[in-house]
């Protein structure tokens, strides 16, 4: 297949996936996105354990625990299991400040990774539901009251929340803020079509019984939240989304930090996809197997391909421009001749694709905030973020191929 053929094939698949999600969203628009909490009978609420795995989180964990203590939930039905996973800073002493609260239990152990902290929490609770809250995230007071009632449906084994970027300051954090709106939409619509493949660390909840039956959390290439979701889907459990359960999570401030985080996520996703490869393209797993997993994998290849192609074309254009100046002595000048405006099919398709992404961001904003208005930094996101993403996609693919492993920090 020629380069043009490959480009069109990737564009078609990307557009098809975006259109599919929008169609699914519009078809199921009767699935209400309500921010109003329906009154709940406290007597029927399940018991809940929230595990907070901490490794060197002395700066952020106090805010995380305070937000948990402020949760509206019957005190006798909730416990907070704070696990110091072998921190070398003042995390443990920070946690000790909260020991006097009857809902708090503190554990300390040798460093073993997040999955071991979660399993420690699982071993030490009799609660019906178990959830996780990363030590760099805070929850809104009503969040759990939006999540717990979803488990009244006996078929549902896990519920994911609605995640926002916590107090974005740097340009990079503002770009991530837009990206998270897109994720809000994706998480919502993937739950609607039964295809969630990540139960994110900030405030996802599980039926404790199901997690025990499944054997607890695994290391899973440093992405236990993806592996758990894939394992649940593999065993036929449903994963729902509670878009009104609001969580704010800290995001990387700098490009190197963001790069490390995303390489870890993508690496983990690729390695888990290999582990669960029998689900890819398998209609037994419905939309997840037929469309979502293949599209997620293809999107990585497409991202790297488009970036490489644009980078190569830009270099060629730059070289041509230098040669042109060298041989003609003429410097480039702005031309407003309509004749030379790019009207290629490729450009039209790229513009439509960008328009669809904007629609998805707007839908994500609506689901998360009730307003269709995307964040102000959306134009910057649309212009520049797609040039950043392939950097970590490429690095993650190389690491996944050579199975190098990734570190959390």
């Amino acid at each position: 297949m020629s380069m043009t053929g490959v480009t069109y094939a990737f564009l078609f698949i990307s557009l098809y996936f975006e259109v599919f999600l929008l169609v699914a969203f519009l078809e199921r628009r009767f699935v209400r996105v309500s921010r109003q909490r329906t009154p709940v009978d406290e007597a029927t609420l399940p018991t809940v354990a929230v595990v907070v795995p901490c490794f060197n989180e002395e700066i952020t964990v106090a805010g995380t625990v305070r937000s948990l203590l402020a949760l509206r939930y019957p005190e006798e039905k909730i416990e907070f299991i704070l696990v110091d996973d072998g921190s070398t800073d003042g995390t443990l002493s920070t946690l000790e400040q909260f020991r006097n609260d009857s809902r708090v239990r503190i554990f300390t152990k040798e460093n073993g990774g997040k999955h071991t902290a979660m399993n420690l929490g699982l071993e030490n609770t009799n609660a019906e539901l178990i959830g996780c809250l990363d030590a760099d995230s805070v929850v809104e007071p009503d969040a759990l009251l939006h999540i717990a009632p979803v488990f009244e449906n006996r078929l549902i084994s896990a519920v994911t929340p609605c995640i926002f970027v916590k107090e974005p300051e740097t340009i990079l954090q503002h770009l991530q803020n837009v990206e998270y709106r897109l994720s809000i939409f994706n998480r919502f619509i993937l739950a609607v079509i039964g295809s969630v493949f990540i139960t994110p660390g900030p405030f996802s909840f599980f039926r404790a019984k199901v997690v025990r039956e499944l054997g607890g959390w695994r290391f899973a290439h440093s992405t236990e939240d993806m592996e758990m979701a894939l394992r649940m889907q593999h065993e036929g459990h449903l994963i729902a989304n509670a878009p009104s359960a609001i969580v704010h999570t800290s995001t990387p401030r700098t490009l190197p930090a963001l790069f490390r985080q995303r390489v870890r996520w993508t690496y983990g996703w690729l390695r888990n996809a290999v582990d669960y490869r029998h689900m890819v393209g398998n209609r037994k797993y419905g939309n997840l197997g037929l469309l979502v997993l293949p599209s997620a994998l293809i999107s990585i290849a497409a991202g790297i391909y488009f970036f490489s192609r644009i980078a190569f074309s830009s270099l060629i254009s730059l070289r041509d421009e230098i040669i042109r100046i060298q041989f003609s002595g003429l410097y480039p000048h702005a031309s407003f001749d309509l004749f030379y405006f790019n009207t290629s099919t490729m450009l039209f398709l790229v513009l439509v694709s960008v328009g669809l992404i904007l629609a998805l961001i707007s839908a994500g904003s609506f689901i998360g905030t009730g307003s269709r208005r995307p964040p102000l930094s959306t134009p910057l996101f649309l212009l520049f973020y797609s040039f950043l993403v392939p950097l970590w996609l490429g690095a993650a693919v190389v690491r996944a191929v050579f199975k190098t492993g990734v570190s959390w920090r």
Partner: protein
Amino acid sequence: MRTARWSSYVVALLITAAIFATALYASDYFNNRRIAEIQATQSSISIDILSLETQFDLLAEHSCQDISENSVLSSEIQPVGQRLAYLETQSNVDQAQLTELKRYYSLLEIKDYLLMRQVTAKCGLKPVFILYFYSNKGDCKDCEEQGYALTGLSETYPQLRVYSFDYNLDLSALQTLIDIHDVKNQPPALIINGKTYYGLHTMADIKKILPQLATLKTATSTATTTKK
């Protein structure tokens, strides 16, 4: 077993196909408009050349001033050449249509060249023509650079007439021109003052070969004359 809602797959497929079809149609529509624009310009140039030829025949040497001042090449033919070169880089352009445009363009260039040769001979002007033969079949590694050098000269000296020809274009008049000047298939080839030069020639090289360039009006200067 999970279920997949097939209607969603079909609807998404139809919408995506419709988006692709619309993009193809839109691109095709704009390319056709470009081609129509070039065709209209070429028709207009053709009439202008015919008119100048007729005027020249009617008035002979008395019209020298008018003819040289009304040369159509630099103001109209050259932009058409640039536009054709741009269309050659566009993937969705109908190649058969584009080749027809190039054939017509080359014919206009030859007619303009012949007319200007008569004018220079009869009116006693110094010839400032360059015939340039290139190839875009991938067998001419210096053609791109040669094109840039000639563009630079044309922009600097608006009165310089550069006639560019695709060596491989299937046009009998062009083949005759090639035969008359005995141009070998070794592009880039330049014909300056009746002599053929092969290989890359920079702006400085051409200025040496064509010293009368120095007497031409530059894009930023004022009055000079090409008259002997």
